[in-house]
């Protein structure tokens, strides 16, 4: 397309066929003069508007995007705009964390008879976009490689499971094992500091079981793939929430699952520990207490305070174990709710919009699209059918540009809206350390604000908020154009 004339900006409208498109027709019939910037894409229903279309437009050069549908309760299809309202409101609040001015996106309701209202909506929105001027282009923005502290002041201990408790757990698993295909746990990996998943299928496997603060993998990731098998799983509070979320979504079956629950005070942040440890050849010994981690590395004794290396996500733990355990071990009273802001989110909050976009731009230069973030996410249930890689639908070009990489990160984040249980695996497994958990933490914050403190994975009976609606939304005040 040729560049627009100087006085026009690129504004994309998604209008539902039944109400707003008709309203725009009515405005036309009434010869209601309007600015010429807006280009309308006709969709059957505002509920058809995937928020990703809006982001695609904004990342590809739109200066403004407007979605308009039937008034709530007036949807041609009954409930489409109720869903749209939730999703679009989440989207609008999500934009700032990406560095996109939320004023560049708006959604509203215009009925087929409201030609005048449509004229007002178009005129006002166009005016507002002109006031903002052309949108900054993600690929052209100055990268901002800002150094910041990712550590979070922590007083909390980390988990140490006593040998007695571990034996108790092993015994319980051994008792159950004959009726199970396998039990998911952890074991020592390449050295004592690095734990890896363990698939317990025999008593022999069971001897390798380890459940301390080095065990960071969220084993729930494996459950959907094991559907049809009878599986046991060892969970702590964060894994338990992932289990609950998958149960809510019907992706795993409760009957096929035996849940062994352990208390947890916190986990070690291995990437930071590795950084502090530096390059080493051999890790010879490890002693872990709730407060101290002693390592012997290449013959040298190294001592770390665990509080300095507690995972920041443990600072946001809701504490309480969701009620899904079949068998619980140990004392859960030490698990207290803590609701601090994740450091990566606090950092992004401290930046202005332009800086945020520059920051993500710098991050995306490092992203190699290895998809470790996605594939380690227990909630990324699309698995091999992720739209980021499919050719039909063709959401993304194979070009490894910063824009395409960013769009992938946006897909991943938005698909987690209202579903992310905050385990932080995405970020923990990023080889280049991108703070992508901030996107999810921000979405979780939005969802909590909009839907009465909703937290994913806490209530097995809850419906994820973006998969339902209410006719009157207590916390969504749609944009009024009066």
């Amino acid at each position, binding site marked *: 397309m040729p560049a627009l004339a100087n006085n026009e900006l690129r504004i994309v409208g998604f209008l539902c066929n039944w109400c707003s498109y008709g309203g725009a027709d009515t405005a036309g019939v009434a010869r209601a003069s309007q600015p010429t910037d807006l280009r309308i894409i006709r969709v059957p229903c505002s509920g058809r508007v995937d928020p990703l279309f809006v982001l695609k437009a904004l990342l590809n050069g739109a200066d403004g995007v407007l979605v308009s549908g039937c008034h709530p309760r007036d949807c041609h299809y009954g409930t489409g705009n109720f869903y749209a309202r939730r999703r679009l409101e989440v989207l609008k609040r999500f934009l700032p964390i990406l560095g996109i001015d939320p004023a560049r996106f708006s959604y509203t309701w215009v009925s087929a008879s409201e030609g005048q209202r449509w004229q007002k909506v178009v005129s006002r929105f166009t005016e507002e976009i002109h006031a903002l001027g052309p949108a900054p282009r993600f690929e052209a923005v100055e990268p901002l490689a800002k150094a910041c502290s990712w550590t979070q002041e922590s007083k909390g201990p980390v988990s140490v499971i006593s040998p007695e408790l571990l034996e108790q757990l092993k015994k319980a698993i051994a008792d159950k094992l004959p009726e199970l295909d396998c039990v998911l746990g952890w074991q020592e990996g390449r050295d004592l500091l690095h734990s890896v998943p363990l698939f317990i299928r025999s008593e022999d496997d069971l001897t390798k079981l380890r459940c301390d603060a080095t065990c960071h993998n969220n084993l729930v990731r494996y459950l959907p793939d094991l559907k049809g098998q009878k599986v046991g799983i060892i969970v702590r509070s964060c894994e338990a929430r992932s289990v609950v979320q998958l149960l809510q979504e019907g992706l795993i079956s409760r009957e096929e699952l035996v849940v062994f629950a352990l208390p947890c005070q916190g986990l070690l942040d291995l990437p930071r520990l590795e950084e502090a440890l530096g390059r080493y*050849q051999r890790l010879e010994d490890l002693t872990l207490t709730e407060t101290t981690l002693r390592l012997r590395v290449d013959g040298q004794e190294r001592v770390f305070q665990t509080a300095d290396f507690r995972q920041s996500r443990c600072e946001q733990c809701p504490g309480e174990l969701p009620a899904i355990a079949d068998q619980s071990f140990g004392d859960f009273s030490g698990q207290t709710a803590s609701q601090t802001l994740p450091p990566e989110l606090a950092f992004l909050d401290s930046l202005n919009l332009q800086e945020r976009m520059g920051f993500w731009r710098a991050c995306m230069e490092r992203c190699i699209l290895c998809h470790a973030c996605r594939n380690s996410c227990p909630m990324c249930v699309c698995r091999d059918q992720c739209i980021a890689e499919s050719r039909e639908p063709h959401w993304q070009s194979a070009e490894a540009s910063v824009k395409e990489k960013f769009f992938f990160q946006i897909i991943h984040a938005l698909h987690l809206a209202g579903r992310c249980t905050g385990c932080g695996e995405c970020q923990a497994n990023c080889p280049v*350390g991108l703070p992508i958990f901030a996107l999810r933490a921000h979405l979780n914050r939005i969802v909590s604000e909009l839907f009465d403190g909703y937290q994913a994975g806490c209530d097995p009976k809850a419906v994820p908020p973006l998969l339902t609606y209410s006719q009157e939304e207590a916390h969504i005040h749609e944009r009024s154009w009066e």
Partner: protein
Amino acid sequence: MSSDRFLAHTAIGDFLEGLVQTGYTVYCPQKEPGVRQSVIFAPWQKGLPISLEKATVAPKHLVLPQSEVLFRYSKHKESAEPAKQSLTLDANEIFTPTLLFASRPCDARGFAILDRPFLQGLFRDPYYARRREALCVVSLTCPSGCATCFCHWTGAGPSSPEGSDILMTEIAEGFVLQGITDKGKELLLASKLPEAGEKSQEATKARKAAWQSLSPVQDLSTAPQKLAEIFADQAFWSQATQACLACGACTYLCPTCYCFNITDESLDGENEQGVRLRSWDTCMAKQFTEEASGHNPRPDKAQRMRNRISHKFSSYPENWGSFSCSGCGRCVTHCPVGLDIREIVLKAIHAKTAQQNEKETS
């Protein structure tokens, strides 16, 4: 005349600046802040700090970019006769001279491993060739091994020169730069760096010390044959990959993985146009070798992991006489679930074949 030169710690900036002046784009490791600190090869500009740490991502992208335009296509027609159209293809890419500074010998050896299929096979890949020819590799001797790397198992070591044009070794006040290839020697001779002289011996000592610090070598010489024998052992591969998440971290961080995919991506304009892209593929992904019919000869992750291991330690060696693994250990360091390629290969070497199993049971 020896081309060995001495580069003082304090002179690195000037040296690199000189290279930039002569037209090189210089890539060197730079520390990036993040939740996990990473070291990335990025274009260097005057004033930027450099790091001498081993990079998080191998510098493979300098010869095989994550995605590259093979050509642009564009269709043209006239308003008067829209049914008639012509097609233009444009593959004019300009490759600028590039210098990679302070990569590790395992990174450089990755280039040598890539060179064989891309340059020495039946077909010489013109895109790769032009990038490779424009690249000068300056590697830094590793002072020691680390917990995950194993170059010495794969037939090399912390100062192996293979793939490098220049090998630099750190000594007390700076580095000794030693020309390996003609390209490297010429560059050093043309530089204003002082001759290394006796410092070369110091560097030799440092290299020896590095070799001595390594953990014991494991013998992988039987790997090609053993892997071929257990190729059909589904149970072995399923067991080895049950924790695998099928992400692509191992292959994308790897200096030697070179599988790619080719796609056409349309661009919008008044006329129809687009690009043909070559982009990294990963054998860990379900889409790898998926055919247009939907059939995939490697439908599950076990078979795809088998592909990765067997290619590196069996089929590539059969074709080219060397492992397609430089032992950099990045796949081990960064695997989200700690899968260890060393462990899998060793297990394969000690695995009993189906025939052996049969014998034992009978």
